[in-house]
Structure formats: C-alpha cells, structure tokens
C-alpha cells in the first residue's frame, strides 16, 4: 500500500466508489421496481423490464382501497388505520411505562430494586418463540382475542426499553432531581419535565425501534387476531399474497403503502436509528 503511487490510489478510490454505488443500486432496485410496478398495467408487471410499456394506471390503488371492501376483504384504508393505531399505542405505552420503571430503578431505592434490575436483564435472554403459545393462551383467558388490546398489551412491557431508560437516567445527576424535589416538585413532574426532555435522544431511539417492530410485525398478529376489520397492513397484505396470487398490482400497491411510511420515518429519524444500532454493536 505504501509503495503505491498517488495516481494509482486515485484509480483504486474511483473503483471502490463505483463498486459501492453499484451495490447500493442493487439494494435500492426492489423499491424502485415496486413503486413503478404498482402503477403499471397488470399484464405489464409480469414482464421483467423496469419501465412500463403500457399507460400507467391507479387501478390497483382503487382495488385495495375500494373494490376490496366490496368483495368482503379488509380495505387498505382501514388496515392502515389499524397499523397506525396499534403501533403508536404500543410505542406510547412502552415509553411511558418504561420511562416510569427506568426512573424508579435509577433514582429510587425500594425493596426488591436489585432483584428487578436482574429480572429485566434475565427477561432479555429469551427468544420470542417461547412466548407465542402461552401469551396467546393468556390473551384467550382475558377474553381479548380478536381485539385491539390483544395486539397492543403483550408488547407494552419492554424489558429492553426499561433497561435503556435505566442506563440513561443513571447519568442524569441526582442533585438535579433532588433540587426539584426540595422545590416541592412531584415525581411525575420530575419525569415528564426533567427526565424525558433531558433524554430526547433515548426516547426517540426507543420510540423509533418499537414503532418499526410493531409496524413490521406479522406472526403475532395472525395468532392474536382473526377479525378482518382489525387486521393491520402486514396481515392484510399477506392475505392478498396468498389468495390473490395473480393480482400482482394490488400486492405491489399494498407493499408500497406498508413500506413507505416507515421509510419516511426512518429517513427523518435516521440519526437516532443509526445510533441505536451502533450502541448495540459497540457494547458487545
């Protein structure tokens, strides 16, 4: 490397940039293809070309928003609403419940505190699959199958979120908390006026990851809900894939609606997102 001339180095650099740009193009191609396909004529999608050979159409969107309802399937408008409702409720619950718990663990001493900290770490060890059957049974015992609650409540107690809040809140000086207490500020005031505003970055990271995971969830939703009207987009789209194998245009329009909101959120909050990932990586 040290014996290479400057000029040689420059060529290598251009070569590397071209390779990585080509790879990025391959990685992004499916999105481009889906976007164009969702506006293509049905017979045009099956062709391999990216560019349309027939006039573009919004027929597939009309189908998933309107026609679907007429033939007794969940229209995408409703499914979109369900996804938004479920994902944002879980996100809100996780942040509030996790924030309260993280605050309690980091700024209060109470009986069992050390056990609870270990409990949270213990919880994070187990894979989801272990809980699929028994959580379904618990929800069934609570008579919540086929309700929104079934798709919200089981995900509101996130050990991961509590742990992150606990870690982060530990770094906020006790003196600050104490001085608000002396001024007569209540605990909730401390949490919502001091802890959360001082930890915007961690709140965004947790909120973003939880929202994304709920938005993209599939397995749990097919287990916990069979009612058409309550189905989130993933379940509805999977249904299209299974029963409308031929209607590709509708599938593509569905993919676009499922994918783009989360991509926009991701681009807006990309910095918290990448920070969240690197945090998990560096610690090991």
């Amino acid at each position, binding site marked *: 490397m040290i014996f290479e001339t400057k000029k040689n180095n420059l060529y290598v650099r251009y070569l590397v940039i071209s390779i990585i740009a080509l790879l990025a193009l391959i990685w992004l191609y499916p999105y481009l293809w889906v976007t164009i396909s969702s506006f293509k004529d049905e017979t045009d999608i099956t062709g391999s070309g990216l560019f349309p050979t027939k006039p573009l159409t919004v027929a597939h969107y009309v189908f998933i928003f309107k026609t679907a309802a007429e033939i007794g399937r969940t229209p995408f408008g409703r499914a979109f609403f369900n996804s938004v409702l479920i994902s944002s409720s879980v996100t809100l619950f996780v942040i509030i419940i996790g924030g309260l718990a993280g605050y309690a663990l980091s700024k209060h*001493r109470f009986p069992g505190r050390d056990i609870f900290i270990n409990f949270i770490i213990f919880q994070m060890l187990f894979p989801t699959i272990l809980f699929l059957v028994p959580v379904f*049974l618990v929800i*069934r015992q609570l008579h919540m199958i086929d309700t929104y609650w079934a798709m919200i409540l089981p995900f509101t107690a996130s050990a991961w979120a509590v742990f992150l809040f606990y870690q982060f809140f530990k770094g906020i000086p006790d003196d600050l908390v104490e001085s608000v207490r002396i001024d007569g500020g209540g*605990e909730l005031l401390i949490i919502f006026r001091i802890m959360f505003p001082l930890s915007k970055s961690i709140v965004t990271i947790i909120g973003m990851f939880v929202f994304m995971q709920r938005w993209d969830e599939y397995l749990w939703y097919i287990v916990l809900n069979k009612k058409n009207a309550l189905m989130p987009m993933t379940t509805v789209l999977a249904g299209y894939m299974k029963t409308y194998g031929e209607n590709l245009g509708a599938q593509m329009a569905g993919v676009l609606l499922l*994918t783009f909101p989360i991509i926009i959120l991701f681009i807006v909050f990309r910095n918290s997102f990448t920070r969240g990932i690197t945090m998990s990586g560096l610690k090991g």
Partner: protein
Amino acid sequence: MAINVLGRRYKKGFIGLALFSPYLILAIIFWCIPFVWSFVLSVQKWNMMSPPSFVGARNFISIFSDKLFYISLRNTFQFIAVFIPLSITVSIAISWMIYKIRVGASFFLISFLLPYVTAGVAYAVIFNRLFAHDGVVNVILRSFDISIPFFTDPRIAMSSIAILVVWKIMGYYALIFYAGLQAIPNSIYDAALIDGASGTQTFFKITIPMLNSSFVTILIFAVGLSVNIFTEPFLITEGGPFLSTHTFVFWTYKTAFELFKTGKASAIAIVTSVISFGLVLIVRKIVEKEVRV
C-alpha cells in the same frame, strides 16, 4: 427527626415501587405467567378445549422421534451455512469500503439500511416476484444461459431465503462493523505502516482482530435470527417444497394453531430456545477474545 427521616425513606421507597408497578404488573401477566406456563404446558397434552392431562416427558420424546425435528434442524443449518458467511463477508466488505472512501458514508449506510426497516411481509411479496421463473434475476441470468428455480427446487429453496435475509439485514451488520472500524485508533495503523506492514497484512492482522466485539455481537444476532426465521418461509414457500424450508418457528406455529397441540408446541419452543442458547454459547466460546488496545 429520626422518625421523620424514616418516614420519608419509607415514603420514597413506596413511590419507587409505585412507579415501577405498571411495568411489573404487565411483565407478570405477559412475561412471567407465560414463561412458567410454557414449561407447564410442555409436560401436558392439551387441545385448548378438554381439560389438560399430564404426560411427563412424552412431548419431548415425540419431538426427538419426529422426522420434522431433523428436517427443521437440517434446514436451519442450511440457512446458517449460507446466511452467516455471506452476510458477514458482504457487510464487512461494504463497511470497509465506506470507511475507506470517506465520501457519502451516511448516504450509503442509509441506503443499505432501508431493507432493515422494511416489513418481512413486504419484501416476501417483492422477492417472490423478483426471484420468480420470469422475474428480473432469472432474466439477467438467462443471458448467461442459466436459470435458477430459487423457491421451487428443494435443494436451494432455503439458501434462496437466506439470500433475501442477507439483503434485508446486511445494512444493519455493516453499520455495526462501520462503528467498530471508526473505533480503531489511527495510531495502530500508523505503527503498522512504520513497521512496513502491507495493506492486506494490516487488514487481516489488525483490522479484523480489532473488530472482535462487533463480530461477537453480529454472530449472536445472526444465530438468533437463523433459529427463529419464520415470515419468509411461511409466506413464500409455505415450508416447502418437500419441507425444505420447514423451520422451528414454523413447526411451533403449525403444531399449536393448526393441530391444536399446545403441549407439544411449547416443548418445541423450549427445544428451539435451547438450540438458540447452545449456538450462542458456542459462538462466544469460539469467537470472543479479549482485545487490548
């Protein structure tokens, strides 16, 4: 005064517990009870209707005498054999390139991360089409006189699914490696340069060993992901052709919610978790090393 202090401490303790209690209650209902219940179920026979009966270790015996266990195990290992080497090689190469060119780093990292935020259902639909017989991948391959039946040949269906998952997760791993690369102090490279190390030597003798903790993290994630793969085989290949994409989570789901054998399904889930733990332990044992700067 002393009473006052004690009183205050008691009150503070009570408030702490009160603030923790929403989490605690939900965790008891949706974590502790299910956790214990899954072990109780695993020694029972129950179809969710008639009363459960105790069957001892029979669920576990039936798993190990079921050919689906060995099929799922084989498929999981086939997935791992393709997924782990491929995802790690590609992500380390890409993070290294991004690190070296130092231009547009965040643009490239974000592009490669897009698939990570995309729902499994969405990209299952996309790739089902792109990898189809007349899809774009086969059209390109056909110009070289090759045609690959990605999802219809039982010998390669699981590997094809592994390739999709590489597409999805690569950006995530690349970002972890990229952060790892940035954490390596420049002084080490300077020292290597003075000692006359070549570029390849520096990469394999310094960069790779210094990335050890990133490797460990990624391998643990990758193993967990491999053992728990579900959405892609469930939607694209439905476990087929000839059970070639039948996985453990798929098996658990079918056993519980199509055959209504909750006992056996819980036992499968426990065995799956044990396999997952075992592989993580092996990874740690082999890969994890103390790295000193």
